[in-house]
């Protein structure tokens, strides 16, 4: 049966929290009631990436994109667009700055500069239906590999493509496969690392939610290439929807004979098991992840031996991240040269970023390597909202560092980011504006790593705690100039002496903010001022006399009666009484109260 229209409703986590499930159900109900069930098909898809405007949906064949759709809007969309052939203007995308309205998804700036390889199916197919994946050449790469290529040829294709690990390390994928293949051993394993723990990063989650089969297919290809017949996906238990879709995908693949024994009528067999994490950031580190699958506390092991030599249960193990794997079927089908055609000399292909924080279009994007930070933030991300000024972007989460405004034109590559004192990381990109305090941000990340340190090695366990104590001192106004040197010394020591990647990178947020924003640290310790007004004990709230309209709203809301002045009089805050709760700032309609 052919349908004349398709309605694609995003069912990623963000849109679901905006009730996209209810919107989809309402569409189905109303279409049935109007007898349109045969002509219009409603499909739920994975993430479009446009999370800021969720719930989003696209109507095909027109390609019309609607944003922030509510259950109440469903009737109007059916009436106007499906029956009347017109668009519902008020639900179209409106540029927050220019107010310009764009109808078609392909014309929106957010999508125009993107090159979607790892995300090729996200937002296009129903992830709960394996047939939709197959219809877009799904499992064709596995079939091709089994029929035409030797394992060595597969590895060569990957090596030529220049693909590097997308989980943060950036190790060449083809080389990793080759090392695991060459490791002696009868039994080998493939692991997909889906323990995406960086706060602010949701690339892997979106791929698993939107296109789980691409990962499963790539794991089977990996199994063939290295000589393994079993794989594990280690996914965070917090990702409820991703877990659900993976479970469905694995069972559908088994039913269709795409996982299991005798794949594509060859002797090759491969099956995949799902393992849930239990809330430990350190398990994203490959050796800790392996220890966790074995049923133990997720503590890392010293390397070498590398997992490729002795991994899960002591066997050679290939461990790749979700995004890395999602690229592989596309590379096999289109060729290594095609993939290597994107990106730069040393960083080939594309990278998925989760952009969040103080940015207009938060969401998920895939861009060619070598794009500049400015293009990401201003052209795709729509700039900084509320007319504020860009201050820094944090990449690589708690392991990475920040990139300040004068490096906005930096080309996004593995090596350039490292040189700048940050790192590619898994792809989280948090934008900060001038109302964010960099010392506070550094403290935030240190709190995170200090809490997540597994405790196995002393430099990380004790060192991060000491660094955090110093940062607390500084943000509370008890810091000294010597503290800054101590932070640097400790930071370098922890980097060198820690056992695993968590500890080795934990000081990065502090060191990189010190590199670019040392003046903010100095303001905290010497002048006892927080320039951004974030650190409460160092901020002072004042009323700008010229802007005060003498209404008295601030005095009424103040919980400690710190605001003096009767109506018709310019008000004043008593700094000794003020507890800096900020309620008056929110209450003042004239924005006359400032930190």
């Amino acid at each position, binding site marked *: 049966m052919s349908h004349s229209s398709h309605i694609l409703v995003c069912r990623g*986590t*963000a849109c679901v*929290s905006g009730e996209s499930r209810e919107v989809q159900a309402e569409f189905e109900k109303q279409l049935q009631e109007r007898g349109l069930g045969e002509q219009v098909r409603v499909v739920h898809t994975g993430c479009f990436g446009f999370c800021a405007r969720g719930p989003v949906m696209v109507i095909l064949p027109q390609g019309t994109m609607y944003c922030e759709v509510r259950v109440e809007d469903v009737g109007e969309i059916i009436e106007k667009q499906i029956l009347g052939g017109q668009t519902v203007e008020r639900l179209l995308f409106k540029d927050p700055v220019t107010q310009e309205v764009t109808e078609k998804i392909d014309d929106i700036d957010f999508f125009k500069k993107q090159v979607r390889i790892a995300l090729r199916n996200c937002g296009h197919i129903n992830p709960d239906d394996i047939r939709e994946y197959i219809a877009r050449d799904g499992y064709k790469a596995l079939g091709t590999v089994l029929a035409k290529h030797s394992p060595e040829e597969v590895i060569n294709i990957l090596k030529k493509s220049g693909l590097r690990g997308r989980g943060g390390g950036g190790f060449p994928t083809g080389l990793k496969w080759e090392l695991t293949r060459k490791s002696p051993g009868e039994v080998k394993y493939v692991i997909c690392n889906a323990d995406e*723990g960086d706060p602010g990063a949701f690339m892997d989650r979106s791929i698993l939610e939107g296109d789980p089969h691409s990962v499963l297919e790539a794991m089977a290809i990996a199994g063939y290439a290295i000589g393994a017949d079993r794989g594990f996906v280690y996914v965070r238990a*917090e*990702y*409820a929807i991703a877990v659900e879709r993976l479970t469905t995908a694995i069972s559908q693949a088994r039913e269709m004979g795409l996982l299991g024994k005798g794949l594509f009528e060859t002797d090759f067999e491969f099956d995949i098991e799902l393992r849930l994490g239990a809330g430990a950031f350190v398990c994203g580190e490959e050796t800790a992840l392996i220890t966790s699958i074995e049923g133990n506390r997720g503590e890392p092991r010293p390397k070498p031996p590398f997992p490729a030599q002795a991994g899960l249960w002591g066997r050679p193990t290939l461990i790749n991240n979700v995004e890395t794997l999602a690229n592989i079927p596309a590379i096999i089908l289109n060729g290594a040269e095609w993939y290597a055609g994107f990106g730069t000399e040393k960083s080939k292909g594309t990278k998925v970023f989760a952009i969040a924080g103080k940015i207009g279009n938060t969401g998920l994007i895939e861009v060619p390597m070598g794009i500049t930070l400015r293009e990401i933030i201003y052209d795709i991300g729509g700039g900084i909202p509320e007319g504020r000024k860009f201050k820094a972007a944090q990449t690589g989460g708690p392991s990475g560092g920040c990139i300040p405004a004068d490096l906005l034109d930096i080309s996004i590559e593995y090596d350039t980011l490292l040189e700048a004192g940050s790192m590619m990381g898994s792809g989280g990109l948090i934008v900060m504006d001038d109302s964010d305090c960099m010392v506070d941000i550094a403290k935030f990340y240190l709190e995170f790593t200090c809490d997540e340190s597994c405790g196995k090695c002393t430099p990380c366990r004790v060192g991060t705690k000491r660094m955090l104590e110093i940062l607390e001192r500084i943000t509370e106004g008890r810091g000294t100039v010597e503290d800054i040197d101590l932070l640097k010394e400790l930071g370098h020591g922890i980097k060198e002496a820690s056992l695993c990647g968590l500890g080795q990178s934990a000081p990065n947020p502090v060191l990189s903010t010190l590199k670019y924003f040392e003046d903010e640290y100095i303001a905290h310790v010497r002048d006892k001022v927080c320039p951004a007004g974030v650190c409460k004990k160092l901020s002072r709230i004042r009323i700008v006399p010229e802007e005060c309209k003498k209404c008295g709203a601030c005095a009424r809301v103040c919980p400690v009666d710190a605001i003096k002045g009767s109506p018709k009089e310019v008000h004043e805050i008593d700094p000794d009484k003020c507890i800096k709760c900020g309620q008056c700032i929110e209450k003042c309609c004239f924005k006359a109260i400032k930190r």
Partner: protein
Amino acid sequence: MEQTMSEHDEKLTKLNRVLEQYAGKPGALIPVLHEAQKIYGYLPEEVQYHISQGLGVPLADVYGVVTFYALFTMTPRAEHNIAVCMGTACYVKGAGQLVEKIGGELGLKFGEISEDRRFGLEATRCIGACGMAPVLTVNEEVHGRLNADQMGELLEKYKNTH
């Protein structure tokens, strides 16, 4: 009392079934603990002991694993568990203010549950809904694009539901 006994038996039967299913499988401890926590809501010592016996894993190892991972808990959960996302995106968009407000209304700090066990407040790691920051979850439901002023209404909704 009789009913609680039968409830007890029912849970134990479920747990035993899980233990049977995983018996002899390498690396079974963590999946079994996940299942057990689904059955009991938390992992009290007795349950850990039972699992240790069932899988033939030393109790010390079971306890070690339970206390290592943040998602495993040894205290009973509240009826409505409010988990505020403290990921970076939510943090810079004011998750702290949500916590202050909720904490004030319910008289709770992170990790505490109310005396009547109706509400619990906890910080959660990034749930990946950064596009809707700041977010929180109540039980399994995700609420996004929040500000402190909406907290009263949100809590009211759950106060009236069981």
